[in-house]
């Protein structure tokens, strides 16, 4: 060639540690199966517990909660890491329906990779099905229920479905009732009454280990742990009070430890006996005098207060609480209504001061607390008790999740039937929709009818599988053709009235003349007849042994009363609308992202 290349300054001799691998189906399947088993076994109120301990022998955690599992699990496979990241993101933003999200995601990835279809086609159809689900759930005709915040029963149902699905809390039925009650009370107590922009304050917890959950209760106001006060002290606080009996509070978020600021390029020359320490003490004492003058009864400070100021204030009967830290400063601000002061000044604007109704010394299970009360401001502390550290931690997580669910319900007062009924409704709706819109959909997707049916049926089956996973080791779950809710067949064949009373979520009663279909059976959607807007089950169910069994059961139905059987007044099982919708979204979106991956490039260069 005409000219020699000037060359590259240095031929890179070192080997780059980058591995390119095609993502094989078998490789993914094994890891997914393990992950699915883990998630599935934890799912629902009958979920199995997991004991987690790291290899170094750290703390043992017993849990079945999504948020704990996701924090503790460390996975090596990148696609599982991605799934966990999505799962974690959902739990962080909604606190509930985490396992539903993970299970649906895993089901979709696993089953779509087994289909003999182009991944992109599966992705398109999954997305289409998601859209149909969302349209349905957002419509007034869906199975969703309106939540009236004033209706304590409905609100309780929402709380119960969160707390009762955490077996690691170790709660009995009575304890569950109490905890649900207290959680709802704490939430309602924290709601401001008259403000236009409602902001829900975070709930303060005091955790007590070694007591039964029945000892849990709610304390109005704020509790600040004060180990410096001996529990046996019976002497109360004699603080300066206002005419109405209230106590003025000054709240500082800056250090009151003295020591002035220094300016660069300024040299200081002082007279004899004049020191910076002395001057700063003087400065603090001026502030103290101002506080005394304003008849402040309590000085609360996020950081350190200089002993001289403490002494001065104590001599004037003013109580000082310092080192509140970020943990308590917000609660104190909330309960007092004080404006945090950030500067040490000789004058304090009076409108920056807050008030409390009373300040008492409270001893709770052998520990000293200062109890700040103000009936005018809705702040409360949740004293949560449980037998073991692990169960207590799990209970706190469950209560926080329930509180979050209630807060989300306040923003969108809707709920969905729980206990797998929502999934059963979704599956029925999807079957109906794809039948009705099949021709339009095929034009848009550019695929054959068979391809579409394979992928659509797969999506529906995945949704139903999540509902079925609620029962561990029991396969007899059915759905009816009127309400399309989920019904559970008892293992022992008792009278039909025992199980026909109410569906799994408790919202629907048995309707005479209903037909049944095994939930999650792979039935071709074309077999479902569409009559008068309802899905009528095709009666050719005798191909599978389980279905034969069902047929036998149905023959028994002839002896059952034609009118709905009045079941026991069991509470409804409701799921958060916002959380479920988000979980559905995240699960399908993430599954689609993973299905699209065909190779991995692992960079091991440090």
């Amino acid at each position, binding site marked *: 060639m005409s000219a020699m290349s000037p060359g*590259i300054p240095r031929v890179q001799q070192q080997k780059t540690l980058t591995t390119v691998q095609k993502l094989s189906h078998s490789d993914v399947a094994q890891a997914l199966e393990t992950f699915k088993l883990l998630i599935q076994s934890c799912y629902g109120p009958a979920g199995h517990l997991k004991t987690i301990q790291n290899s170094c022998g750290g703390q043992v955690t017993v849990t079945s909660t999504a948020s704990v599992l996701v924090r503790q699990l460390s996975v090596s496979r990148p696609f599982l890491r991605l799934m966990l990241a999505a799962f974690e*993101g959902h739990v962080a933003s909604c606190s509930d329906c985490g396992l539903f999200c993970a299970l649906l995601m895993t089901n979709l990835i696993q089953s779509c990779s087994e289909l003999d279809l182009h991944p992109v086609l599966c992705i398109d159809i999954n997305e289409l099905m998601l859209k149909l689900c969302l349209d349905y759930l957002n419509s007034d005709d869906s199975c969703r229920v309106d939540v009236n915040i004033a209706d304590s029963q409905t609100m309780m149902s929402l709380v119960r479905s969160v707390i009762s699905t955490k077996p690691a809390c170790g709660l009995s039925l009575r304890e569950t009732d109490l905890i649900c009650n207290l959680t709802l009370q704490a939430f309602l107590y924290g709601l401001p009454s008259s403000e236009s922009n409602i902001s829900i304050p975070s709930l303060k917890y005091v955790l007590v280990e070694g007591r039964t959950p029945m000892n849990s209760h709610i304390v109005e106001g704020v509790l600040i742990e004060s180990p410096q006060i001996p529990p046996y002290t019976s002497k109360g606080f004699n603080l300066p009070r206002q005419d109405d009996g209230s106590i003025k509070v000054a709240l500082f978020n800056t250090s009151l430890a003295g020591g002035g600021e220094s300016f*660069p390029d300024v040299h200081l020359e002082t007279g004899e006996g*004049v020191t910076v320490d002395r001057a700063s003490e003087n400065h603090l004492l001026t502030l103290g005098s101002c506080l005394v003058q304003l008849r402040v009864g309590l000085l609360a400070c996020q950081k350190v207060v200089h002993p001289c100021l403490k002494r001065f204030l104590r001599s004037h009967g003013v109580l000082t609480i310092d080192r509140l830290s970020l943990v308590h400063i917000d609660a104190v601000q909330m309960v007092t209504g004080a404006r945090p002061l950030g500067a040490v000044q000789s004058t304090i604007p009076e409108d920056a001061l807050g008030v409390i109704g009373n300040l008492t010394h409270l001893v709770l299970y052998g520990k000293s607390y200062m109890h700040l009360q103000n009936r005018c401001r809705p702040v409360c502390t949740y004293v949560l008790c449980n037998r073991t550290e692990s169960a207590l931690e799990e209970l706190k997580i469950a209560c926080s999740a329930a509180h979050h669910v209630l807060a989300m319900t306040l923003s969108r007062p809707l709920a969905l039937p729980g206990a797998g009924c929502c999934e059963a409704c979704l599956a029925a709706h999807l079957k109906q929709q794809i039948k009705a819109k099949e021709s339009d959909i095929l034009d848009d997707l550019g695929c054959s009818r068979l391809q579409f049916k394979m992928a659509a049926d797969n999506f529906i089956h995945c949704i139903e599988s999540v509902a079925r996973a609620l029962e561990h080791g029991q396969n007899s779950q059915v759905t009816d053709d009127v309400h399309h809710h989920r019904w559970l067949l008892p293992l022992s064949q008792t009278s039909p009235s025992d199980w026909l009373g109410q569906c799994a979520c408790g919202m629907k009663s048995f309707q005479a003349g209903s037909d049944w279909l095994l939930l999650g059976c792979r039935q071709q959607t074309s077999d479902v007849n569409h009559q008068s807007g309802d899905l009528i089950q095709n009666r050719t169910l005798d191909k599978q042994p389980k279905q034969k069994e069902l047929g036998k059961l149905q023959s028994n139905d002839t002896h059952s009363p034609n009118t709905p059987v009045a079941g026991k007044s069991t509470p409804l099982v409701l799921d958060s609308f916002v959380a479920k919708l988000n979980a559905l*979204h995240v699960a399908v979106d993430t599954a689609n992202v993973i299905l699209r991956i065909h190779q991995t490039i692992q960079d091991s260069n440090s």
Partner: protein
Amino acid sequence: MCQELPVNLLTAVTICETIEGLLRDSIGPNALHTMLTSPSGRVVITGDGLTILTSLHLSHPIARWILQHVKSHHDVTGDNSKSFVLIVTELLRQLQDAVSLKSTSSDSSSKQDLIAVSQALETIHSEIFPEVVLPELRRHCVCLDLVEEKRGDLRSMSRKIVRTSLGGKFTMHATNHVAELIVELVCGSCQDVGNLAETMQGLINDYDVGCLEVPNQPVSKSKLLDGVVCTRNFAFQSDDLDTLTTVPFVILSCSLDKWTPDVRSTLAAKSTRDLTMFLELGTSRTQSLIEHLKECGVMLVLSSELLSDATLSFCRAARISAVHMIPEEELSRLARLTKTDIVYDSTDILRSTLKIGSAKFCGSVMVGQNIGVHLGFSDERVRTKQLVLCAPTQGICRQWFMAVLNALKTLRMWLDTSFVSAVPMRDGDNINKTSSRKSNPMTVECECVESLDQSSARRCGSAMQDTTGAPDALILESDLSPTNNSQQKTEMCKPQGICIPGGGCTEFLLHRILSRGHDRDWNLNLKDPALSTAIGILRDAALCIPRTLHRNSFSPKSRKSSFLEIVSKVRHCNALISVNGRTGALCDNSDAGVWEAMSARYMLWRDAIKTVQDLLRIDMIVGIKEVQEDHSNTDDEDSD
């Protein structure tokens, strides 16, 4: 010290084929993605060619050299990195086949052949493309004037271009949703359509702060917010801030507590009282500055620095809301948009000439799980929007972030007409002769998109039925007759958006143009065997893009729907046709709304040819070894 490593064509082909193998499945609407994992555990999923190539840490100099070319092309166009690799590989492969046919010839003569082909490629690059290919391509493109009356058409076309750019990277609904947001971002930020290109450039420049990534949310929650969002929450928010209709604000890039005297000073404190006063000096000064801001009517302080507890306390007392630790880039953008001064020295606050900004409203806004501060403006001159991009994980969010930036670059390419002005226009040249056969001269910018859509349906229908050479039924075509050349050129230089259907349409056209090359008088020496070979190679290589699209489609691999069948149809069809990347069938992608920036496509081919041409001239890699310094003398000195 140097090491020589000969470079032959086979080495280049092997390298390119290895890279191509990694990218081939990621092309088109049915593209599959690659998961990249870093040593720190970060997971990124991408279908972006450049990102994949960069993550490979290529060590071979030729591979790195090709990567450099891909990168510079991608930086400008925001797209086409995979197509670039595909074309280069295909050209080299074809060339290798051509060379291997002459395997009997000696090594030196084969090198001479390659040099000759390289020179022929230069001719194609500098003469045939601008003079023959470009005018032909322009006959089939859609040009839209950037005028206010066509704002609707521009929106519609930009939507299609963005969808094409995002297509294959994400799911359909997510793509449609984000495409709408991008179009709204571009058109909503532009007051005068004539300045669309400048607006686009501004958006690209400010993209890092103009787009917020929000992980842990579904993509459908992505949204556009009018105004500007600062990614920090209020350190203090006054109760009445939400209700204000005018929010005067000041931007600080300094601390209000720090004060340095002009000269080095000495303070003499004779008594403790003096010293106490000195200790209060900083606080008093801060208080006076805040009070001054209050007197000026300022209701909001935005600072890139940390505001001290004291400053915040005074802000609370003065009921001035405050936001601190805002990234400097965000504040610079805000200052530029609102023409507000940034205060770098706290004493400047006292200046009477200080320009303070004014917002129509200010409030907190939830950005994922974080809270930011949202400023809106009533002033028509401050037309700006903030894009909030949501995705389930950080990695997917990053993927969207890059894809949207690339889509903006694609739109910029759509408005780039500089390549048109580079066309050498010669009176009475061969191109014009071909074009002047058309009896219906029209202006280049001519039709709106709708008319094209209607016409293209007819065009495609007739073309599909009669594949034996039906007359070209295109409505949008330019008449480059010799008489109106200068007028044409003037009109070409007007701000326009020029695009062409995607899905391999350009490549089919290129294939057709080059196939007919021998029938035309190109004023070129086509008897030159090297030029003939080069044109033949290019003609065949042009099909690599539609072939890959077809390969990645859902199309069953039957003989009836094979690519060979498609090629034979294309050869006998004069209409504009493309491959439907989803189904693999032939279609009119202008109907399907698949459009690409004409300049990007044109530049892609020229850059790829240039790369191959340069590659053919490389014969050796000279590796410079690091010279080991002889430390013996130094050691001796040390020991001494």
